[in-house]
């Protein structure tokens, strides 16, 4: 493991929905440049963790610090400004617009947060940035296709590309390969991880697919009933008894819905 | 749900609707285009706005339209009794455009502009709502369009500004209420306190103000209630208001309600014994007399906004008997106030056309009608106020009584007050005239 000071510091994080405990006293440090895989059965609290880090859900108790700055209590967009971005399990994009327009909006917002209402969106500067993003995420061919006509995989790629244009220092990916066919998934992850490596982004991703986890991750966090039951390198984790019983075992029972 | 059940229900409804449609088709539904007379003579178009939709249509708008259609038709055919038995409007045959008056003053303004500028009507004769008249008077002036208001009552129209093209052929609301107050004084001299329920707009506000001010002058010992009710027009339910008035110490209830609101109020008040305990004064009650039959309580002081409808049923002038009989033949009921008022306004248009010569301008028509006196169906009309644009007529009241023998309502103790007694002289505003002790009133 790399011994940089932690870029993300989570302390005593608790989230309760009535009687259901979705996060039970989570403590974890993430260092700069790490690629972390978050695994766990459905309902183990993975997405809830991502939601809390990005400000979508307020925690019941605890603290989340990003580069020493407290995130709890900040709105989603403030956290984006701070430098944390995310993708979604079900891609959250603008479905009635083209890929190009989607990215243009993302770029425009990233470029100019005060948003000057009087300036046109379509500027040469943004266009060149757009071409750059399209290249890196191999979306050139689909630039003028409306999202609703895109294949699932391309949508997910777009979803991630939109999260990245704001140049985050931490990126959380929520099940990046769900809905992507077995044949395509490695190509897909190669594109994504390649682009992210270039920028030196710290990545946390939630994943069901242990092959993907084994291949791309330097560290695994295994969730079970709102707790981290294992925090170790992927090889070790996949061999771990507890992980096998509570995470992988469960996974095999209810694969795919 | 069971499909059979649905089918049965559907069949039931279809049957019911068919039954309704066939059993009571209202006779006036038929669109009779007013007699396209064969002669090649001149043609004019008269627009007649009235309430054709909404709560005011049945009691007010439709009888009014009927009155107008009947008189236009008779004039076209030259069938009015003398001295109006010449054919046509200055010889021209009139076709009548029916128009809905509902939807608010602003919509009426837009429609009026259309009438004048798009459909090029020659004259506009009608309007029931004071709100509409008030909004349209300045527009008519702006467009220089000869217009006769038939029924609307607010005195403000000719008191606010001098008019060149706008006329009103019946007296305004002040007359209704000064006459009502005088009638109360004569017939109920012991009245100690009075309250009222009025619709919340110019008509209701003006009516109450005039009635209240007059009583303060002529019966200074009577006391006005603090809780006069002003529900919204077309509210329909007056339970709480009736309770409040029942608890009030006043022994008289004045209302300028009209149309559907009036009928609902009479119903609800009668069921609650309101009119048994207190004397009701209904200034526009005349329209209810023929329609409600036995449901109209006895002993109500009833007005018809002038010498019209049930108040003049016994006047046996040729013109009046022609009006009553023709109307009854055509529409199956006695003519109520609005029918008379619209008929009278149409008659005024004929007189203006007859006098103004062929193909007259709006100026010529206005000149012809300004300041004249004419004999209408039920009364004499003098265009003497507002520089000769506002009519004055006598006004009267009676007391309701159900005639068991003939199974209809009649009025007893009818008394008429001459115009000079109940209306201010020209140039004097209603309010200042009443407040000043009604100077110059000749009763």
């Amino acid at each position, binding site marked *: 493991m790399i011994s940089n000071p932690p870029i993300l510091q989570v302390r005593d994080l608790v989230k309760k929905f009535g009687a259901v405990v979705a996060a039970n006293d989570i403590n974890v440090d993430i260092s700069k440049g790490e690629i972390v895989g978050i695994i766990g059965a459905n309902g183990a609290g993975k997405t809830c963790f991502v939601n809390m880090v990005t400000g979508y859900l307020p925690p019941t108790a605890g603290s989340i610090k990003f580069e020493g700055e407290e995130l709890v209590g900040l*709105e989603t*967009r403030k956290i*984006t*400004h701070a430098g944390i*971005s*995310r993708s*979604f399990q079900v891609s*959250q*994009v*603008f*479905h*009635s*617009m083209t890929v190009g*327009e989607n990215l*243009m*909006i*993302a770029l*425009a*917002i*990233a470029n100019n*947060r005060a*948003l*000057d*209402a*009087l*300036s*046109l*969106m*379509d500027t040469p500067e943004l266009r060149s940035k757009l071409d750059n993003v399209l290249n890196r995420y191999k979306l050139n061919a689909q630039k003028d296709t409306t999202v609703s006509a895109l294949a699932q995989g391309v949508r997910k790629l777009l979803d991630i590309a*939109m*999260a990245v244009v*704001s140049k985050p220092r931490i990126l959380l990916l929520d099940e990046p390969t769900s809905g992507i066919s077995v044949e395509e998934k490695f190509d897909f992850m190669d594109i994504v991880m390649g682009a992210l490596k270039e920028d030196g982004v710290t990545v946390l991703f939630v994943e069901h697919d242990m092959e993907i986890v084994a291949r791309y991750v330097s560290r695994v966090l295994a969730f079970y009933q709102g707790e981290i039951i294992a925090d170790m390198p992927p090889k070790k984790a996949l061999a771990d008894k507890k992980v096998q019983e509570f995470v992988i075992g469960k996974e095999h029972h209810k694969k795919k819905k | 749900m069971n499909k059979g059940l649905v089918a049965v229900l559907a069949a039931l409804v279809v049957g019911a609707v068919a039954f309704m449609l066939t059993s009571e088709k209202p006779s006036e539904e038929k669109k009779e285009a007013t007699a396209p007379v064969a002669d090649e003579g001149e043609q004019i178009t008269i627009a007649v706005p009235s309430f*054709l939709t909404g709560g005011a249509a049945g009691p007010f708008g439709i009888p009014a339209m009927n009155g107008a259609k009947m008189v236009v038709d008779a004039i076209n055919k030259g069938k009015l009794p003398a001295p109006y038995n010449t054919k046509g409007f200055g010889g021209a045959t009139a076709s009548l455009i*029916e*128009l*809905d008056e509902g*939807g*608010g*003053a*602003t*919509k009426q*303004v*837009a429609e009026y*502009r*259309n009438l004048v*500028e*798009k*459909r090029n009507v020659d004259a506009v004769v009608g309007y029931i709502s*004071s*709100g509409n008249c*008030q*909004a349209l008077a*300045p*527009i008519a002036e*702006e467009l220089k369009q000869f217009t006769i208001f038939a029924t609307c009552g607010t005195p403000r129209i000719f008191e606010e500004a001098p008019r060149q093209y706008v006329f009103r052929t019946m007296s305004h609301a002040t007359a209704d209420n000064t006459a009502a107050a005088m009638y109360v004084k004569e017939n109920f001299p012991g009245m100690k306190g009075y309250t009222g329920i009025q*619709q*919340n*707009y*110019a008509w209701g506000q003006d009516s109450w103000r005039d009635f209240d001010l007059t009583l303060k002058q002529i019966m200074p010992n009577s006391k006005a209630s603090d809780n006069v009710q002003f529900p*919204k027009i077309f509210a329909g339910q007056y339970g709480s208001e009736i309770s409040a008035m029942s608890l009030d110490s006043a022994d008289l209830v004045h209302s300028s309600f009209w149309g559907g609101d009036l009928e609902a109020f009479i119903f609800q008040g009668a069921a609650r014994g309101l009119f048994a305990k207190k004397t009701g004064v209904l200034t526009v009650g005349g329209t209810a007399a023929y329609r409600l039959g036995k449901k109209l309580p006895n002993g109500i002081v009833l007005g018809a906004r002038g010498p019209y409808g049930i108040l003049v049923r016994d006047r046996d002038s040729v013109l009046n008997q022609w009006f009553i009989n023709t109307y009854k033949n055509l529409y199956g009921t006695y003519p109520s106030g609005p029918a008379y008022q619209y008929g009278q306004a149409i008659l005024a248009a004929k007189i203006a056309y007859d006098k103004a010569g062929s193909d007259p301008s709006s100026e010529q028509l206005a000149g012809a009608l300004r300041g004249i006196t004419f004999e209408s169906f039920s009364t004499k009309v003098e265009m003497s106020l507002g520089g000769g644009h506002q009519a004055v007529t006598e006004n009267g009241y009676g007391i309701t009584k159900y005639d068991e023998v003939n199974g209809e309502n009649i009025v007893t103790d009818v008394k008429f007050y001459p115009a000079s007694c109940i209306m201010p002289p020209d140039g004097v505003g209603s309010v200042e005239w009443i407040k000043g002790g009604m100077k110059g009133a000749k009763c």
Partner: protein
Amino acid sequence: MFNDKTSKFLLVAGLLLILGGAFAPNWIVNQFMFGFSRALAILGLMVLWRTGLVSFGHAFYFGLGAYAVAILDIKLGVTDVFLRLIAGALVAGTAGFLVGFIMRNYRNIFFAMLNTAISMVLFGIVVKTEALGSTDGFAISMSTILGVSPETKYPLFVIITLVGMVAAILVNYYLKTTFGKLTTAIRDNEIRVEYLGFSVAHAIHLKYSISAILAGGAGALMAMSLGQVDPESMINWTVSGELVFITILSGPGNVIAPFIGSLVFEVLRTYAFELAPQAWQLIMGATFLTIIFFIPGGIWSVLEKIGGKKNDK
């Protein structure tokens, strides 16, 4: 900046209409005045609609604009057409900005209904207050233009057309800015917009205020062209319904659409009223249902189909 096809079309069409208006009969000029006045409000509703929001209560702002003109006229004797217009837009805009703090938190049907509720409060107050003209409303004196009182309505028509043209060109430009582009983005996916780092609430607040200003201006122009205001025709919920009707009728495709839609509505109503004084509501309602069911893109989509891909006629 304004050299796109839509702006050019607006410029040319506006000038042609102004020329044509000089020779047209009065009633046609009237229809254009009413139509274009209303179109201003539709323009604002269109911006909201593109954001996925439909307000069933914009008669609130329309009425505020109209009544601002009336009150200024009666209490202060203000007759200048520009002062009246600015007052109407300003009053409505201020109200819209304040109400926006509530509205920006609501979406869908709740947004629609809360707007209705607000408009009904104003309706109730106006109807019940004699000083505000109660049910009768007010007549409004003829507008003067920089101190000159015109003989005919034509100058007012010219001003309304110019105001409509300028507003349409500005809105068209606005829709091309980042802010404007956010309309569809917000409709499609608010969560993403927030995660991109932009406040949906602020964006909606701005759009809502713009729509209020436009509706207020529309009310002011309508009051001036009609010469009358009353609560039934300016503030009641049925007026809000009409405004939404025209918005749907026009279609969201282009800023020209509201002007065409409003004109069609004006003509439709005039003729429905003329042909069937007792059943004109039925005609309007049936048209409404037909549009919702069969032409969801409104008149604009039909024009586009006829004219192929190019969006001019």
